């Protein structure tokens, strides 16, 4: 196992590992609190609309496919195809944020605030922090789409897959296990 074998820039792997650690720590604290109050967490979770989370998973995973295809096209010297893939991936990110916004608006209208229950504190913190990464990811994808050179496209795609990866790992604690 050699560091040189890792695909892409080492700094991106350090970023991915760090982000995973941060989100895993946040979810761990949420789960520990939930284990002390499983009924309260179950009642709080029941107020969320899981359909939006399921839809957003499909959107993000599909967006990840476009990013992966863009990376492959960039290394094959197909800049136009890579650019198209990156723009579609970014569009997926925008759709994700719209769905998330609709979900937050529905929650707030239902009287669910960040201080309503510890479950909702972590719900807003984790999903909001993740949404901030989606915003950053969309910007990164659009930036690397300008020139669509292989290494920058790979870096953008890696960041985007990290956003995808974090999402599938925070999903159970927020929407599913209580």
């Amino acid at each position, binding site marked *: *196992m*050699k560091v040189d*074998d*890792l*695909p*892409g820039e080492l700094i991106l792997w350090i970023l*991915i*590992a760090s982000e*995973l650690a941060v989100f*895993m720590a946040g*979810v*761990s604290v949420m*789960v*520990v609190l939930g*284990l002390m109050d*499983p009924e309260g967490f179950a009642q709080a979770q029941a107020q969320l609309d*899981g359909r939006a989370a*399921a839809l957003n*998973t*499909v959107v993000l*995973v*599909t967006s*990840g*496919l476009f*990013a*992966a*295809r863009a990376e*492959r096209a960039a290394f094959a010297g197909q800049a136009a195809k890579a650019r198209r893939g990156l723009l579609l991936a970014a569009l997926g990110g925008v759709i994700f944020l719209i769905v998330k916004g609709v979900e937050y608006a529905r929650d707030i209208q239902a009287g669910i605030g960040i201080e309503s229950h510890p479950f909702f504190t972590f719900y807003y913190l984790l999903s909001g922090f993740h949404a901030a990464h989606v915003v950053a990811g969309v910007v990164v994808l659009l930036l690397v789409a300008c020139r669509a050179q292989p290494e920058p496209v790979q870096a953008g*795609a*890696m960041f985007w*897959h*990290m956003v*995808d*990866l974090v999402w*599938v*790992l925070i*999903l*159970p*604690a927020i*929407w*599913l*296990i209580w």
Partner: protein
Amino acid sequence: MDPLTRTWALLIALTAATTALAGVSGPLAVILVLLLAFLKARLILGRFLHLEAPPGWLAAFTLPVGFWLCLIGAGYVLTLR
């Protein structure tokens, strides 16, 4: 089928399975949901992030994630007792 499309199809299938389990309660459903999360994470790391190719690196990322998901599952099951 193109390998990237196959990975996407697998991720969608795992997402569909997760959604189907969303309405089910109980420790078995929770363990299955966590297992599905692990499989999705492994696919993203291995195929989209290309960790299947360099020896050892996929395990270096998936083992801590798997251990962490096991801890969450164990904590949940122990709380029920």
